[in-house]
């Protein structure tokens, strides 16, 4: 290969790309344009951004602490001003005089952290296991898929409830590194005991969350692994690990991403169901689920109460679903129903 053998590259470019040709768009631009065409998804994304920002700046936005009690100021109406401290209760207060607005913000921090951690963990674990299972086939595949099938046959919610009720009462059953507890405690402004609860709930949800992802990934890998470019990579001597990481997982990622954003909605709901039924994160740590559970006892005298923690759950679940829908349209138009 001498320099004289290659033609001048500039000329070729000029011939292939005359002025009249449309400007080349990157894959990302196309996807972004398709996503923003979905109006509800765009709106949902904006809404979620607002909620995220509010959750990130919870401490700055909230005028009360998450567990601060003002017993003289119970069941204050939304927008009223506390006589004791002169602070405004934008969404009113609960049965212990705790400010709903502040608690909702802190709860957003916790609920969203749990949902995102579960989705990230289960996507990573599920993709890896699914890809290995699909790529190698044989005994590994058999064992892994039998296990996944077995787990998927078992009714999920009851088992989730049983496990978390046991773990709640004997938290030492799973050893958790102290550093992780401290990190979560600092991130969510919680004590170590409450942080441990959050980690437990995350782990329990992840234990079930990765199953579906691994099945999806396995299916994608099975259809991709015999394609020419994978064969070409193998012929070039790329290792199995390299093929899985560089070729299989990235190319199977579109449905995984869509599934992940839909799963976010699912885990926001599942986490709040667990807390609602008192088998998740416990009061006084605020989560939307356990706040809703308490409002149920007082809703006959104060009917607006359930709406305050209930609406954020509903809005988040809907928004994640719409974003997932938009992503599906954007990433893979063939999937459109």
């Amino acid at each position, binding site marked *: 290969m001498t320099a004289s053998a290659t033609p001048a590259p500039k000329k070729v470019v000029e011939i292939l790309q005359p002025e009249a040709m449309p400007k080349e768009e990157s894959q990302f631009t196309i996807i972004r344009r398709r996503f923003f065409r979905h109006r509800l998804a765009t709106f949902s994304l904006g809404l979620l951004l607002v909620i995220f920002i509010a959750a990130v700046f919870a401490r700055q936005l909230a005028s009360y602490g998450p567990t601060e009690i003002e017993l003289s100021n119970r069941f204050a109406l939304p927008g009223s001003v506390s006589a004791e401290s002169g602070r405004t209760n934008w969404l009113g207060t609960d049965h212990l005089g705790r400010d709903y607005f502040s608690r909702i913000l802190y709860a957003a921090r916790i609920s969203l952290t749990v949902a995102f951690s579960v989705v990230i963990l289960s996507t990573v674990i599920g993709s890896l296991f699914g890809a290995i299972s699909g790529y190698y086939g044989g005994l590994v595949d058999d064992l892994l898929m039998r296990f996944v099938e*077995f787990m998927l046959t078992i009714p999920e919610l009851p088992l989730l409830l049983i496990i978390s009720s*046991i773990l709640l009462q004997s938290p030492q059953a799973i050893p958790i590194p102290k550093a992780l507890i401290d990190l979560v405690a600092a991130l969510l402004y919680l004590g170590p005991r409450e942080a441990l609860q959050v980690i437990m709930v995350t782990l329990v949800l992840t234990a079930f969350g990765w199953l579906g992802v691994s099945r999806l990934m396995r299916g994608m890998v099975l259809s991709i692994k015999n394609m020419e470019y994978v064969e070409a990579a193998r012929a070039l001597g790329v290792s199995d690990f390299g093929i899985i990481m560089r070729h299989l997982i990235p190319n199977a990622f579109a449905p995984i991403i869509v599934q992940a954003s839909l799963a976010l909605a699912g885990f926001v709901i599942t986490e709040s169901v667990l807390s609602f039924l008192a088998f998740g994160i416990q009061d006084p740590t605020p989560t939307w689920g356990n706040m809703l559970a308490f409002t*149920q006892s007082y809703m006959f005298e104060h*009917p607006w109460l359930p709406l305050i923690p209930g609406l954020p759950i509903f809005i988040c679940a809907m928004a994640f679903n719409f974003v997932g829908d938009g992503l599906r349209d954007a990433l893979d138009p063939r999937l459109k129903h």
Partner: protein
Amino acid sequence: MTNYLIRRSFQMLMVLFFSALVTYTLLALAPGGPWEEILGRQGSETMRIDAEDIARIRAQYELDLDQTWRFTRWLFGWPNGPIRIGEQELLADFQVGCFLPLETTNALGETVIIGCQKPVTLKDLEGRRVSRGVIFGDFGLSWGILRDRPVMDVLWSRIPRTLQLMFTVTVLSLMIGIPLGLVSAIRQYSLFDYTVTTLSFLGSSMPTFFFGIILILIFAITFKQWGWFYLPPGDAVGSRDYVVPMLGKVEAKSLLDQVLRMIMPVSVLVFFSVAGWSRFIRSSMLEVLRQDYVRTARAKGLRENVVILKHAFRNALIPFVTIVVFAIPGMFSGAIVTETIFNWPGMGRLFIDALSRNDYPVSMSIFLIGAALTVIATLIGDILYTIVDPRIRLS
């Protein structure tokens, strides 16, 4: 086919065995238990209890046996004494557990078990109360809900209410869901279709408990405050008579009372099942409408009604069979969240009650029966599938 059935049944048994093992392991890990309550109560009274008493209480709940034997006794009620061959007793002195462990305090001040003062042998097991075994339908005794009564009694007291609820829900949602899915598939992209798909999207992403609470808020609380026709917010039967405007006096425990109380939980569950089922029927119907035989039927000049109902719809229902079969385990275990919100005395709420009162035998049995029914339903669904669709061969 026979081969397939044998293999599947074997798989089914394996799954059930593993579910039982998982259930049992969780049960063994479960904190608390009836003995703790007894210990707490007796410790505070004038009664003083010594190590022997504690051991007796532990023995009452089989805690003195080794895990392996506890598991086999729990699963199929064996061993229940020495092995007998004719007149001879074999292995009568075989140790299966420890009645009184030898405890000591180590350097860290923790109590550790270093040996056994008084072992339990197979001979000791004779005459002890033993369940016939989970696989024979004996789930042992309840720890809390109805203490020392058989778990099955507790379950039977709740099963009728759950069946009443879930049967109504299944029938109604089939009656609503199938036509909705059918029509929205035929008129794809019409206003009707958009409404149905939007509603079913809402149904699949809305949390049940929020929807249930909203219903109570509107129909039980707000309507009552406004003096309109309102619905009772919970329970399956009332304990007192009440007056509903436009309907007059409703006697407690009357049929009307029960119907009124069913409306809200049924609507919540129907809304969610209809969302799923109409979506399923719609996509299955759209799939079938694209098939060649539907075009052939149209080309033959058959009326559109005949094409849709006789040629397309029947075939669209085939995959639906498997889904409907799955409703059976759901009917048994009920709807945990919905029953809790509406205080419906069924299996779902029993499950939650049992869990929160540490009555693990009850909650585990519900879980195990639910798992067993799910596995069986999967098998039945697969078999039915081959019967209604001869194109599919099981192998």
